[in-house]
C-alpha cells in the first residue's frame, strides 16, 4: 500500500495538524501516512491528536526534522468523531486485560517473560477481543522503545484494542523511557475503563 506523505515542514501550528487531518480524510482505512514537521511543539501536538483518536504513532527525529508514521485505523475519528479512548466497552461480553508487571505470574522471571510473550501474541487471536489492555506498574515497560513486545502491542491496537499506559508509572521510570505505542493515560481513565468492563482479567 503506498504511503501518503504530508510535508508540513516550515508550517506553523496548527497547519501541520490541518494537513494531517486532511490526509487522514483522503486516505483509505489502514493506509500508512507519514508526516514531516520541523517543530517540536507541532510534532507533539500531531502525535497527541493521533493518539487521542486511537491511532498508534511512531516518531523518529533526525536533527530538526521529525518523521511521524501512523496508519489510519478502522475506528478513528474519520469514521466516528468520538474519542475511542473514552468510549465504553461495548456489550456485556466486554472485558479488559490488565498487566501490572512486565512478567506474567509469580514464578521465575524467565518463565514470566515467556508467558508475557505468549500472552501478548495470543491475545490478538482471542475472540471476542478485549476492549482494552491496561499496562501499569512495571507492565508499562512492555511498551517502551526497545521492548521485544512493541510489535505485538501495535498489532493489538490495529485490532482495535485500546492499549492504556499508566502515565505516573512511565514518569517513575524516568526520562530515558520513550513510548511510541498505546495511549498514555491516567488513573481515572484506567479505573473507569475497568469499572465499566464486564470482567477484568489480570493474568
Amino acid at each position, binding site marked *: 500500500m503506498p504511503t501518503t506523505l504530508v510535508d508540513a515542514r516550515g508550517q506553523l501550528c496548527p497547519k501541520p495538524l*490541518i494537513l494531517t*487531518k486532511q490526509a487522514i480524510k483522503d486516505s483509505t482505512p489502514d493506509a500508512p501516512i507519514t508526516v514531516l514537521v520541523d517543530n517540536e511543539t507541532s510534532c507533539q*501536538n500531531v502525535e*497527541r491528536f493521533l493518539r487521542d*483518536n486511537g491511532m498508534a504513532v511512531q516518531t523518529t527525529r533526525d536533527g530538526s526534522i521529525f518523521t511521524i508514521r501512523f496508519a489510519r485505523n478502522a475506528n478513528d475519528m474519520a469514521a466516528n468523531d468520538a474519542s475511542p479512548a473514552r468510549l465504553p466497552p461495548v456489550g456485556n461480553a466486554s472485558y479488559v486485560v490488565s498487566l501490572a508487571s512486565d512478567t506474567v505470574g509469580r514464578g521465575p522471571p524467565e518463565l514470566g517473560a515467556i508467558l508475557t510473550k505468549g500472552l501478548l501474541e495470543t491475545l490478538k487471536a482471542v475472540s471476542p477481543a478485549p476492549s482494552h489492555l491496561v499496562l501499569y506498574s512495571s507492565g508499562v515497560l512492555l511498551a517502551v522503545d526497545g521492548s521485544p513486545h512493541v510489535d505485538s502491542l501495535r498489532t493489538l491496537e490495529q485490532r482495535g484494542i485500546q492499549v492504556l499506559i499508566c502515565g505516573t508509572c512511565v514518569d517513575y521510570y524516568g526520562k530515558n523511557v520513550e513510548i511510541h505505542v498505546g495511549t498514555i493515560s491516567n488513573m*481515572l481513565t484506567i479505573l473507569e475503563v475497568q469499572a*465499566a468492563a464486564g470482567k477484568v482479567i489480570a493474568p
Partner: protein
Amino acid sequence: MTQPFDLLTTVEYGGCSAKLAPGLLANVLRHLERPTHPNLMVDISTHDDAGVYRLDAETALIQTLDFFSPVCSDGRTFGRIAAANALSDVFAMGGRVLTAMNIVGFPASRIPLEVLGEILAGGQEKVAEAGGIIVGGHTIDDWPPKYGLSVTGVVHPERVITNAGLRAGMVMILTKPIGTGTLVAGQRVGLARDTDYLLALATMEQLNRAGAETMQALDVPAGTDITGFGLLGHAMQMADASGVTLRIRAADVPLLNGAYELAETGCLPGAMFRNLEYVEQKTRFASGLDYSMKMLLLDPQTSGGLFFGVAPEKAQQAVQRLHEVGYARAAVVGEAVTRGECSIEVVR
C-alpha cells in the same frame, strides 16, 4: 495611500495563546515565598484574576495587568481587544475601573508610528467605555509589538467576586461564546470565513463591564473571566479554589460561529494541547464526547466572557438580563456539585 501595516505579520502566536504554559508557571511560582498581609484579600493562591487589597471598610483596591502581541491585523482593533482583555480582570472580581496605564512594546524602526497611534486610540476608547481614564504608561522598543494595560479598580470588600466562592448547587453561567483562539488561528491559515472572524473580533472587543454589573446586581459570590487556559482551565481553578466539582454540559456551551467547523478541519491551536495537559489529570470527560467539542472547551480565549456561579433560582433571571445588556449568547453551561474525585466532569 499605501497598504496599511498588517500587525499579524509580526507574530507566530498571539493573544492569550502566547501565555507561558500553566504548568511551567506553577512550577516557578511554587518556589517563591507568598507575601501575607492582613489587608491582602485575594492573592495568587487561588489563581484569581487580580490582586485585591482592603483600603478601609468600604473600599478594596483591585490591581491587575495584561498585555500580549497582536491578535489581528489592524492597530485600532488590536488596541481595543488588548484593553478589553486587561480591563476584564477588574470586572471578573466584580469591580469597577478607575484608572489604567498603557504597557507598550513597539519597534519604532520597523512599523510606522501611525500604527502605534491607532493601538493607543483603540485602548483609550475601551478604557473610557469602561468608565476609567488612562493616566500614563510605559513604552519600550521591542519586537514583536505588544500592548496591554495595568488597571486599577475598586470594589466593596464584602462584594469581591473570586474563584473561591462557589458552593455545591450553584448554576454556572458563561456570558460569551468560546472559540476565539480557533477563529484567530483559522484566519491566519486562511480557513476562517470573514463574517465568522469579524464576529470573533467583535466578541473580543466587547467589555465585561455590563456582565460584572449583572453579577453584582444578582449577588453572585464567585466568578472569573475565561482567557488563555480555556473554559476548562479556568473552571478547574474555580473548582479547586472553591472545593467543589464543576459539571460542564458540553452541548450547552455556546460556540462562536465557525469554530466547530474549523476544529473539525484540524485547526486546533497549540495552546489547546497545553491546556489539555493542564486539566486532564483532574477532569473526567464523558464517554464518547465529541473530540472537536472537547478541544474547543480548551480553546484559549482572548478577552473571553465571564463565567460565574449563581443560586439556581436566579439563573434564568441572570441569563435574561445578560441577553438584554448585550451578551446575546449567554447561557447556563453546568453546575457546581459536591466535590468528588475530579475538579471537572464534562458531560455531553
